[in-house]
């Protein structure tokens, strides 16, 4: 665990440790503990609630069982997340100098529902095209493609924000110096701008991948369940099916994939530098 070095008994609390305590307690009780519970449930007897009293791999066995199609949800979630990141990189890089934080504060279902109103039959697109004399808009809703579109749309600010931070970190002098030493624009971009903006770009890619891999609202609202993502399977297991051990096993696998990625990438990133410590 990340905090082993902290829990070691120390003669006196350093100011840093003391200041971190409220947040540490919150994260241990509200983040690590739930994850430990999920992990514990993942090894409990299927469709039971006897956590810590039973140990079985039956849930994982059920997941890898070829007759079970739950793996398609994993594939969908990860594939969509991957495509989402790739598309966002292309969309955001040219505009990573403007910042709009506002969409972050409007709940994603409201924003996604706006697109439903846009794409739906007799909606804004369809209606406008008919009004201009065309035969009407294409049937885009309730497809995997529109799910991806929704994800790109919802997570755009999460890519843009770190990317802009990363690009803003490049000292103007370095670009000037490269140009002064004879480098053309392509070379400046490849040799100076891109490597220096890389931490920001990496954080953006990681953040959007993680969020997109766990996305569910896009597939439900825009995609009309044409795609079942893994989070939806977890939700069903936790709620309607009341199969907590199964849901936990699925969640555990997703969490391992996601946090494995996050931790590897974070180990290579210096937060002090990015957030501007002198």
């Amino acid at each position, binding site marked *: 665990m990340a905090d082993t070095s902290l829990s070691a008994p120390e003669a006196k609390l350093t100011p840093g440790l003391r200041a971190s305590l409220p947040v540490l307690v919150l994260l241990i009780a509200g983040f690590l503990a739930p994850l430990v519970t999920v992990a514990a449930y993942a090894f409990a007897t299927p469709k039971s609630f006897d956590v810590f009293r039973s140990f079985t791999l039956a849930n994982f066995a059920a997941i890898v069982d070829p007759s079970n199609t739950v793996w398609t949800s994993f594939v969908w979630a990860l594939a969509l997340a991957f495509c989402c990141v790739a598309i966002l990189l292309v969309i955001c890089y040219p505009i990573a100098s403007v910042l709009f934080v506002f969409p972050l504060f409007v709940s994603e279902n409201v924003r996604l529902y706006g697109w439903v109103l846009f794409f739906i039959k007799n909606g804004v697109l369809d209606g406008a095209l008919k009004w201009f004399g065309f035969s009407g808009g294409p049937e885009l809703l309730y497809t995997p493609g529109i799910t991806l579109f929704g994800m790109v749309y919802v997570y755009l600010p999460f890519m843009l924000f770190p990317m802009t931070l990363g690009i803003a970190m490049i000292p103007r002098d*370095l670009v000037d110096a490269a140009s002064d*030493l*004879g480098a053309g624009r392509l070379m400046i971009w490849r040799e100076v701008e891109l490597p*220096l903006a890389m931490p920001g770009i990496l954080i953006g890619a990681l953040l959007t991948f993680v969020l997109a891999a766990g996305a569910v609202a896009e597939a439900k609202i825009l995609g009309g369940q044409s795609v079942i993502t893994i989070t939806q399977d977890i939700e069903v297991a936790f709620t309607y099916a009341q199969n907590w051990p199964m849901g936990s096993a699925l969640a555990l696998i997703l969490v391992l994939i996601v946090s494995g990625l996050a931790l590897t990438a974070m180990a290579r990133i210096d937060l002090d530098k990015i957030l501007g410590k002198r």
Partner: protein
Amino acid sequence: MSSVAVSPVSASPAVSKTPRPVLQLVDVRKVFDGFAAVDGINLDIEEGEFVTIVGPSGSGKTTLLRMLAGLESPSDGYITLRGELINDVPSNRRPTCLVFQSLALFPHMTVGDNIEFPLRVRKMAPEERRRRALELMAKVRLPEDYYAKNVMLCSGGEKQRVALARAFAYDPDVLFFDEPLSALDYKLKKLLEKELKDLHRESGKTFVYITHSLEEAMVMSDRIGVMRAGKVVQIGTPEQIYSTPADRFVAEFFGEVNTVPIRRSADGWLRRDGRPVAVTSGLSIDGDEATVVIRPEYMRFVTDDAVADNTIVGTIFNEYSLGSRLQYQVRSRTGRTFLVEVPRAAAWKGTGEVTIGWDARNAIVVGG
């Protein structure tokens, strides 16, 4: 670029003398939002010269340098390099190179990669690049094993040398320096000033250096230009600038000076109290008001044995040691403060009022 090759010679009023200047500026202006940071500069820089532009911060010297390097383009006027108009030639197509105040070393590259950057632009073969980089490192006295060192782990002085080597790797006709030594401690600064001067002599290249420190300028330069509010107020050899400053601003820029306001009368120049003042310079000044400027080291104590052309009576109220010399602050009867700097041997031993004075040949008269 075909647009670049237009010869400005016909357009520029000040056609060159011989030897032809490598850099020529004619009425160069740069306006930012209605504010003229550089306000009409005419300047010729000769081949192989070390020219330093000094001025207080905000005088427009950095803007001037950025225009010369091609990082800004002038709003008005001409900049020519060996007779070719380069106003709008981008920095990557100019045979000039700027050493930035921040040094602008690429933090994600090694020392070697930094130095080789301009060579990679030129698509030089890797082995040759490396050979050339090591050569340059030797030239700026960087140890060979620094080649693979992370540039951000170098000390201030070492970074300085990397930046120099990188600029030389570009092999420019003219090198520009934007106060690169300002962040270093005094001793290192002195050392690097000397090395820079040596490098200038060995390479035979033209150096244009800007700084706000006249001391730095005096040590290194062939010529010094003094800038103020976007204009060059005086240009000349260090000796000329020091001994015959064009105005009070230039005189005061050199450090502490004594000033005595004077006015013109039918009988010649008079002090405020109506006494005549002996002067040998400034006879061509237009207005009726002028200022006599005397450096502290030209002021001395006046006794019966040692008379002076001009005298002032006052009282000593402070004494400082400057090492081998002593400096006194003297308040005159009219309440003005004067600085007198004498060798230790000439220390003032008396009490009460003191007479200080200067000789006319040691004073400079400037207008205003």
